[in-house]
């Protein structure tokens, strides 16, 4: 498996944008190494701030800078942004609609890998998705992080971009398909028996599972939902209705993230059977990323089995209200 750093992609893109846009700033909370930000700090020392291990203040400080016309990127671990500084994000970034751009590293269990639960963040998307006014993006690989960073810098208001460990799988053969903020995109459309929705650094597994299904004669459509908010409800509802069965796959708690988002659309717009794959509301262990994903049932075989199961449910719907005895 080829790897490329989604963290380095952040700083490279910031450096590139900062050359032409004097408003781009980088705010760290002793996270400059986390985000591979040394190059930015050296190139633009006056536009780089490190407030120390103090995420709440990093977000406040960025909000103050943004209120004076700057576009600060706050980059540190995903959980310290979404949990430690959650209230600052909500009240002083999202509520006033200030253009603070948050970058969360170690997004997902696998990105936190051997560090253990304190550094594995699988609640960030659910937490931030409930806050009004934040764009939430979950890129699938480094090239997509570059696209996402450029896109959120261009859009007004607050945004969150989730990145990984720095040893992140490459999914797309270049050139990657076009990235449009706020749009779900079909990556592979063999057929409409089941829709496989995925986001983030596990997308390679979803694509592999679709290939495996095809070998078994099952025609799946793979949909990448890289923007969880604003959610592309129209496309998702259309795909749900067309396929009549769906699986969601994410490196996140199945509560609050992509699976919940798809379930919300399904319930309101296109009720079809759905299986959510992700962490099943538990704390994982330390381990190597690929082993963790397999151990916690976000493996290729899990996706294949979930697809077969949900297609079966589509064919033989359980009758609601039927007595069980």
């Amino acid at each position, binding site marked *: 498996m080829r790897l490329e750093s989604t963290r380095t992609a952040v700083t490279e893109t910031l450096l590139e944008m900062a050359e032409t846009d004097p408003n781009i700033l980088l705010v760290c909370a002793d996270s400059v190494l986390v985000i591979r930000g040394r190059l930015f700090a050296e190139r633009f020392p006056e536009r780089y*701030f490190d*407030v120390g291990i103090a995420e709440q203040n990093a*977000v*406040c*400080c960025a909000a103050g800078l943004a209120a*004076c016309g700057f576009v600060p990127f706050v980059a540190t671990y995903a959980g310290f942004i979404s949990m430690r500084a959650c*209230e600052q994000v909500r*009240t002083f970034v999202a509520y006033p609609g200030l253009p603070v751009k948050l970058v969360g590293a170690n997004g997902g269990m696998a990105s936190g890998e051997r560090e253990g639960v304190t550094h594995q963040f699988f609640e960030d998307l659910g937490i931030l998705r409930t806050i009004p006014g934040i764009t939430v993006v979950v890129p699938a690989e480094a090239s997509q992080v570059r696209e996402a960073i450029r896109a959120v810098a261009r859009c007004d208001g607050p945004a969150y971009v989730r990145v990984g460990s720095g040893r992140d799988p490459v999914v797309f053969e270049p050139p990657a398909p076009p990235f449009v903020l706020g749009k779900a995109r079909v990556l592979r459309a063999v057929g409409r028996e089941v829709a496989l929705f995925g986001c983030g650094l596990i997308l390679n597994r979803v694509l592999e599972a679709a290939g495996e299904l095809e070998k078994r004669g099952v025609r799946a459509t793979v949909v990448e939902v890289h923007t969880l908010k604003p959610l592309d409800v129209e496309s998702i509802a259309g795909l749900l209705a067309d396929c009549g069965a769906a699986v969601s796959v994410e490196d996140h708690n199945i509560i609050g993230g992509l699976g919940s988002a798809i379930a919300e659309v399904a319930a309101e717009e296109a009720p079809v059977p759905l299986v959510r794959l992700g962490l099943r509301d538990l704390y994982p262990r330390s381990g190597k990323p690929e082993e963790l994903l397999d151990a916690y049932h976000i493996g290729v075989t899990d996706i294949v089995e979930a697809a077969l199961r949900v297609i079966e449910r589509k064919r033989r719907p359980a009758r609601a209200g039927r007595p069980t005895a």
Partner: protein
Amino acid sequence: MTDAAINGLVETARLIRRDVVRMIHLAGDGHPGPALSVVDIVTALYFAAMRIDPSRPQWPERDRFILSKGHACPALYAALARRGYFPMEELPGLRSLPSMLQGHPDMNKTPGIDMTSGSLGNGIGLGLGMALAGRLRGLPYDTFVVTGDGELEEGVVWEAAMAACRYRVGRLTVIVDHNGMQSGGAVEAVSGLVPIRPKWEAFGWHLQEIDGHDMGQILEAVALARRVGDRPSVILAHTVKGKGVPFMEGDNSWHKRVPTREEFAAAMAALGGEG
């Protein structure tokens, strides 16, 4: 500043205190004690010290103000209205659905509010960002943050206090409305915060201690704070919660409480005069 000018500010503060009590009485909701303790500080800033232009609330070079103790906002709203940011007729609408005057300050709804506030502890970090922005842009403005004293129990206060010194931000002044009380009682009884002064000194801030109800002292301290130059400044302003209304002074039940019709009349009589 001349005696006449000081007397003018004292009179403005009296009018703002009347506005505060009336607003909370009419709204049937609000924090009179914390608002009254901060009135003289807010008046000194908005009517004398700050470089502002009410006809251009977004003027990039204006001095910035953050009311970190956002629950005292009736005092700020009254000052903004009397300074001409919006009509006085807005004041009675406080906290009502159609009003521009939210329960706590909202920078997008009320002209003149530089920063949303109300959740305690965050004003200094927000002000630090504004001060850094001014330095980066080469703009000659100062940033003033008014905090409560109980509010200093929040950890993020000291995160910001550290960073402000590390960045040697000279144009950031924090004024602590040190009335000694917080929601649950005396600050000294609730927490281990007291003594406050050595904490700021240990964090490296330029510190002054004043009577927060003495207009001359407030203006002098603010003028000195502006000149410090190479580090942030804190003014520990000793105040009385409920200042100006004798039956509210020092009575913490007025932290959040609405004056009845009789109490309202008594308060207005105590505050004296017309307006």
